C-alpha cells in the first residue's frame, strides 16, 4: 500500500486526472449552455465520436492538428445545427431524438473510419506545452502547467462560460429562455435564435471534446472510443447544478477517480479486477445523481419545446 501514497505517485495521479478531465469539460460545458436554454442534448456522445474521427482524419492526412480541431468543430456544429432544427422547429422529443443523433454519430464515425482509414493508426497529437515560469513552481507547476494546449483551453472555458452565463446580456437571455420562454418571448427575445445558438455551441464543444481525445489524449481513433463518456458529461451537468464551476467540480471528481483506477491497474499489489475498477466511475455517477438531484432545481423549461402558437 505504501506505493500508492508516495509523492510521485500522487503527483502522477493528479497530473493525469487534470488531463483526463479535458473531454468531460468541453462536452459538459457545451451541454450546460444548451440545458440552460431549456434543451437536453443527448446526442453529445455521437457528436463527440464524429468530432473525434474528423479531427483525427484531418490531422492524420494533413499533419495539421489545428486543422483537425477545426474539422471537429465544424462536424460538431453541423450535428448541432441538425439537432437545433429538429428540437426547435420540429419540436421533437429531445430525449429520444438525442438517442437518434447518438446512433447516427456512432454509425457514421465507424463507417467513415472503415471506409477512409480501415486500420487503427496513430497521430502525433498536441504535445506538452509547459507554461513559462508557472511550470517551474514545484508540484503545482508539474500538475497544472505542464499539459497540452487542449487542457489549458478546457480549463479556461470554465470561467469564460461562467462569465457569459452570469455577467452578459447573452447569458441573461439564455437563462430566461430556459426558465420562462413565454416571458422571454414577450420581451422580444427570440427563443428560437437563442436555442439555435446554444445547441450549435454545444455541438461544437462536443466535437472539440472528441478531438481532445483523438488528437491530444489518446492520439488514435477507434470505433466507439468514447464508450459512454458523452453520457457521463450530460450527467455532470446535472451534478454541477447547471453551473460552470459545479461542472468543473464534477469533471475533476470523475477524472480523478479514473486516474486512480488507471494507476491501480499498474500497481501489482492491489488485486482488484480491472473490469470492476472500470465500473467505479459509473457507480459514482449514479450516486452523484442521487445526491445532487434534490439540491437544485433544473431550468424550468428543460426538455419542453417552445411553441409561439403562430
Amino acid at each position, binding site marked *: 500500500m505504501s506505493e500508492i501514497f508516495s509523492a510521485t505517485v500522487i503527483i502522477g495521479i493528479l497530473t493525469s486526472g487534470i488531463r483526463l478531465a479535458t473531454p468531460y469539460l468541453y462536452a459538459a460545458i457545451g451541454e450546460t449552455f444548451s440545458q440552460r436554454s431549456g434543451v437536453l442534448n443527448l446526442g453529445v456522445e455521437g457528436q463527440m465520436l464524429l468530432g473525434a474521427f474528423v479531427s483525427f482524419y484531418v490531422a492524420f492526412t494533413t499533419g495539421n492538428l489545428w486543422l483537425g480541431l477545426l474539422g471537429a468543430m465544424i462536424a460538431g456544429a453541423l450535428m448541432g445545427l441538425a439537432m437545433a432544427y429538429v428540437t426547435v422547429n420540429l419540436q421533437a422529443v429531445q430525449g429520444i431524438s438525442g438517442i*437518434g443523433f447518438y446512433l447516427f454519430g456512432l454509425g*457514421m464515425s*465507424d463507417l467513415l473510419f472503415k*471506409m477512409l482509414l480501415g486500420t487503427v493508426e496513430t497521430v502525433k497529437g498536441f504535445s506538452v506545452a509547459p507554461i513559462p515560469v508557472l511550470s517551474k513552481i514545484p508540484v503545482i507547476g508539474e500538475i497544472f502547467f505542464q499539459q497540452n494546449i487542449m487542457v489549458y483551453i478546457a480549463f479556461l472555458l470554465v470561467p469564460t462560460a461562467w462569465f457569459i452565463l452570469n455577467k452578459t446580456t447573452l447569458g441573461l437571455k439564455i437563462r430566461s429562455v430556459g426558465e420562462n420562454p413565454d416571458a422571454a418571448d414577450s420581451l422580444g427575445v427570440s427563443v428560437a435564435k437563442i436555442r439555435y445558438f446554444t445547441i450549435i455551441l454545444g455541438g461544437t464543444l462536443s466535437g472539440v471534446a472528441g478531438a481532445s481525445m483523438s488528437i491530444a489524449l489518446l492520439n488514435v481513433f477507434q470505433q466507439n472510443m468514447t464508450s459512454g463518456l458523452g453520457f457521463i458529461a450530460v450527467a455532470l451537468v446535472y451534478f454541477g447544478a447547471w453551473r460552470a464551476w459545479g461542472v468543473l467540480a464534477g469533471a475533476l471528481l470523475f477524472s480523478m477517480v479514473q486516474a486512480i483506477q488507471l494507476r491501480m491497474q499498474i500497481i501489482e499489489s492491489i488485486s482488484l*479486477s480491472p473490469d470492476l475498477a472500470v465500473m467505479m466511475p459509473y457507480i459514482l455517477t449514479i450516486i452523484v445523481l*442521487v445526491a445532487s438531484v434534490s439540491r437544485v432545481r433544473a431550468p424550468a423549461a428543460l426538455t419542453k419545446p417552445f411553441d409561439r402558437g403562430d
Partner: protein
Amino acid sequence: MRSRLNTLFDALLPVFATLAALGVGMIMLLILRVSPLEAYGALWEGAFGSTNAVAETLVKATPLLLVGLGICIAFRANVINIGGEGQMIVGGILATQIGLTFTEAPGWLIIILAMIAGFIGGAIWGGIPGILKAYFRVNEILSTVMMNAIAVQLMNYLLRGPMIDPTQLEKASKIPQTARLVESFRLLRWAPTRLHIGFVIALVLAILVYILLWRTTLGYRIRAVGQNPHASRYGGIRVRRRMVTALLLSGAFAGLAGAIQVYGVNYRMITDGSASGFTGAAGFNGIVAALFGQLHPIGTIPASIFFGALLVGANKMQRVVQIPSALITALNGLVVVFVVSSEIWRRRRQRQRLAFARAAEKDDAPPPSEINPSAEEASTS
C-alpha cells in the same frame, strides 16, 4: 371516412420517415461511389433472398421485438428506458448461470427456469433506475445508460473470472466465455436454419402486452401516468409505483431477450468486451423498432422484422458492395430522428381536428363535456 384517412396517414408517418432515412442513405452511398441500387439490392437479398435469409431475419427480429415490447410499456408511462443493453446482459447472465449449475435437470424445466431468471435479471436492472426515478428524482435516461456500462463490466468480469469455461482456463487464449449449455437445454429450432421458438414466444408476448396495456387496470394506470401524471394522482393512481412497474417490466422483457439469445442462438455467453458483442445492439435498436411501431405492441412486430431485415441485410451488403454495416447503425439513428420529428404533423392535425370538433359543437348545443384538451396537450409534450 375522413377520420379513417387520418388514422392511415398517422400510421404511415414512420414509413415516410424511414423512406426519408433510406433516401439519405442513398445520398451517402452515392458519395461513397457505390450504386445505391446494388447496395439496397444486396440488402434485400441478404434479408429475404432465401429461406435461410428469412430465418436469420426473424432470429435478429426476436430480441428487437422483446426489447421493443418493454419499450412500449415504458414509453407509454412516459419513462424513457435506454437501458435495454444492460438489462439484456444481466438477464443473459442469470439465465446462463441456471443452465450451468443444474446440468442434470430435465431440459424443459431448465428452459422455463432460465427464462424466469432472465426476466427477473432484467427486471432488477430496470427496477433500480425505476426506483431512483420515482423516489429520488434521478433522470432515468442517465441512470439507465450508467446501468448499461455497469452491466458490461460485470459481464466482462464474470466471463473472465468466476463464470469462465473451465477448459478455457487451461488454454493460453483464455477466451472470455462460459461453457456451452447442455444440448437438451437448447430452445427448439427449425433445422437447418437457426430460427428458434423464441420468436414465437415473442409473438405471443406481443399479444399479451397489448392485452396488458389496453385491457387491464394496470395497463390503464401505466398509460394514464404517461398521459398526465397530475390527473392520475388526483384519480388515485400511485404514480411513483406505476413508474417503477413500467421500468421494471420494460427491463424484464429485455432480460428475457438476453435469456433467449443465450438459449436460442449462442448456447453460451461470450464477450468481446463491449455490450453489443452480446446484444448485437438490440437494446438500442429495440427502441427504434418500438418507435417505428408507434409504441404499439402489435405494431412493433412488423417493425422488428423490418429492422431485423436491415441488420441481416447489412452484413450481405458489407460483403457484396464493401459498405461497412455501420451504415445501418447510422441510418437507424436517422430513422429515430425522423420518426420523432414527424410527430409534429400528427400533433398539428390532432389540434386541427380538435378545433374542427369544437367549431362543430358550437353550432349545435353547448358542449356536454368538452374533449379534455389538457390531456391531448399532455400527450403531445
